[in-house]
């Protein structure tokens, strides 16, 4: 280091003596319209437009009245902004005999998502912690089974699960669906937590054991406080996954318990009467709002958690 500094001083002195003080110095200026910049920003811009245009069309259409929509220009902004379609989508749209809009589906989805997310994350984090830190008999087998579970297509398991739930007497109920969501979240979440806990320094775990902490004390007092990022990642995966689920919702529940996604489908695909595009658009945005908010609120933590898991394990 010192040598380098000396060399630089010497070089500078040489420059000064030969009168080249006006030569290149500091940051090299870069032209704005270089090929590199055009390709870079062009690609990014195109990708952004590709994803944003549909959203734009939906928002714009949902704020138009039906006569304006029939004029046919889907890209033009609304001449007269109306919130009528939003109110209708939320409180009045009909599915079958019920005409209370998406609000009921929203309530169902909340009642399905919250317990499913909490229970699945709780169990999976304890599983992952046990697999990463404690040696026990059959641990390899258990882990292998879980990993295989992550790769089995859902469709294979639907009918057996229907029978199991029926035998348990909870087919068609919310608790039945919650159990299904919890089980199907288990492989990927356990893997996620196991890898995260395995990436924490092993010596911390050893130190806690020497200090006399047992299984639960180490989990709650040492591991949990260090694991906020991975819990946020798990929450995002589970909230968006369960909220957006359609298949399990339609298979395992009765119409009065349909989650928001199923109800949205029923509204949009209803064959009677006029197709109300503005109402459909508003209903779709309403349904997608929850995952969207989750992403916005926790985006930073999400990236950190993914990176934390990716470095090791």
């Amino acid at each position, binding site marked *: 280091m010192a040598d380098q500094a000396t060399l630089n001083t010497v070089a500078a002195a040489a420059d000064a003596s030969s009168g080249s003080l006006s030569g290149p110095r500091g940051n090299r200026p870069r032209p704005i319209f270089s090929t590199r910049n055009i390709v870079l920003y062009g690609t990014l811009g195109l990708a952004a437009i590709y994803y944003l245009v549909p959203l734009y069309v939906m928002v714009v259409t949902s704020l138009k009245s039906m006569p304006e929509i029939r004029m046919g220009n889907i890209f033009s902004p609304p001449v007269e902004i109306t919130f009528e379609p939003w109110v209708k989508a939320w409180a009045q749209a009909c599915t079958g005999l019920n005409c209370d809009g998406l609000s009921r589906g929203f309530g169902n989805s909340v009642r399905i998502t919250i317990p499913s997310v909490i229970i699945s994350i709780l169990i999976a984090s304890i599983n992952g912690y046990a697999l990463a830190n404690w040696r026990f008999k059959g641990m390899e087998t258990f882990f292998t089974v879980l990993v295989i579970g992550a790769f089995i297509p859902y469709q294979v398991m639907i009918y057996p699960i229907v029978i199991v739930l029926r035998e348990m007497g909870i087919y068609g109920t919310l608790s039945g669906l919650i159990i299904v969501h919890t089980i199907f979240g288990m492989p990927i979440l356990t893997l996620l937590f196991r890898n995260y806990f395995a990436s924490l*320094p092993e*010596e*911390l775990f*050893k*130190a*806690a*054991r*020497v*200090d*006399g*902490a047992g299984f639960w*004390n180490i989990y709650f*007092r*040492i591991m949990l*406080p*260090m694991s906020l990022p991975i819990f946020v990642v798990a929450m995002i995966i589970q909230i968006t996954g369960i909220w957006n689920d359609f298949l399990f919702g339609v298979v395992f529940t009765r119409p009065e318990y349909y989650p928001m996604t199923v109800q949205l489908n029923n509204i949009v695909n209803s064959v009677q009467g006029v197709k109300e595009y503005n109402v459909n658009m508003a209903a779709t945005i309403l349904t997608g709002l929850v995952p969207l908010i989750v992403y916005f609120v926790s985006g930073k933590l999400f990236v950190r958690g993914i990176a934390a898991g990716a470095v090791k394990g």
Partner: protein
Amino acid sequence: MNTSVSVKDLTLKFGAITVLDKLNLDIKDGEFLVLLGSSGCGKSTLLNCIAGLLEPTDGQIFIKNHNVTWEEPKDRGIGMVFQSYALYPQMTVEKNLSFGLRISGMDKAEIDKRVARASEILQIGPLLQRKPAALSGGQRQRVAIGRALVRDVDVFLFDEPLSNLDAKLRSELRVEIKRLHQNLKNTMIYVTHDQIEALTLADRIAIMRSGLIQQLDDPMTIYNEPKNLYVAGFIGSPAMNFFKGEIASVDGRPAFVTNGVTFMLDGYRAKGPLQPGTKAVLGLRPEHISVDGPETVNTHQAVVEIEEPMGADNLIWLKHAGQSMSVRIGGNRRYSPGAQVKLAYDMSLASLFDAESELRI
């Protein structure tokens, strides 16, 4: 002296790999024992077994004459300090120190008393309310030692506690650990791969290699009379010079001949009679060779190849008896490459090994 920690026939296998092989070790009460070896020799594994963090495949461990082989770490009366400090990141220093005590449900007043005592001994009082992230490496390791201290244990286990620190801090904390041991007089078991740490701290050093203890002795014995070729080459920096040759008899006196160069073995304390014709290895430490000193029975000519001045010392590399060897001389004596020098040896400090068994003869 009572034994504090006693390891009997300890074997540990991971699948087909044997990490520790019927290892026996007795550590006296109040002794500072250093387990020294290169990485993968099983020294940390042995420490983890004593701590109860690894279950041995076979064998027994006694602490204070009490069989603890099946006991949990917390019931063994040990405190452990780790290389990476292993402080709980979300807790303040004070909470880190008291964590174990709080878990055991100890009285609040007693906890405060012990934390106060530990922080006084280690001079970490002003840091008690800080989080580990706000501490320097040296401070962190002090807190980690404090965590073992508050538990009022019989045996301290150190797993390479200074390896993560820079050179200056390392030598500071080394002295502090030695002072701590002098004041507390606890049994301490200290794992390291740094021979300077081992030589300066230990009452006895156990040099380990592939799961076996090669030599267990006080530092000076290990340095002066290494039991075998491995120990001789491992201890000492720069390393001992080795010459391969055979024992001979010159004028009825034992000698060592290599590449036509004869070393008279006058003054060497052999373990038994030296049989002429035995293939052997002669080990000479760089610091036990004198350059351009008074003539002895062993005065050889050699040529300087390279010089490495280190401030206090000057290490010169020579070509001698067909191989290169190093000699340590005073820092103010300089030689340029190509210079002719006269070498003399102190054979009472040399080591002679059987070439086949690699044991000291």
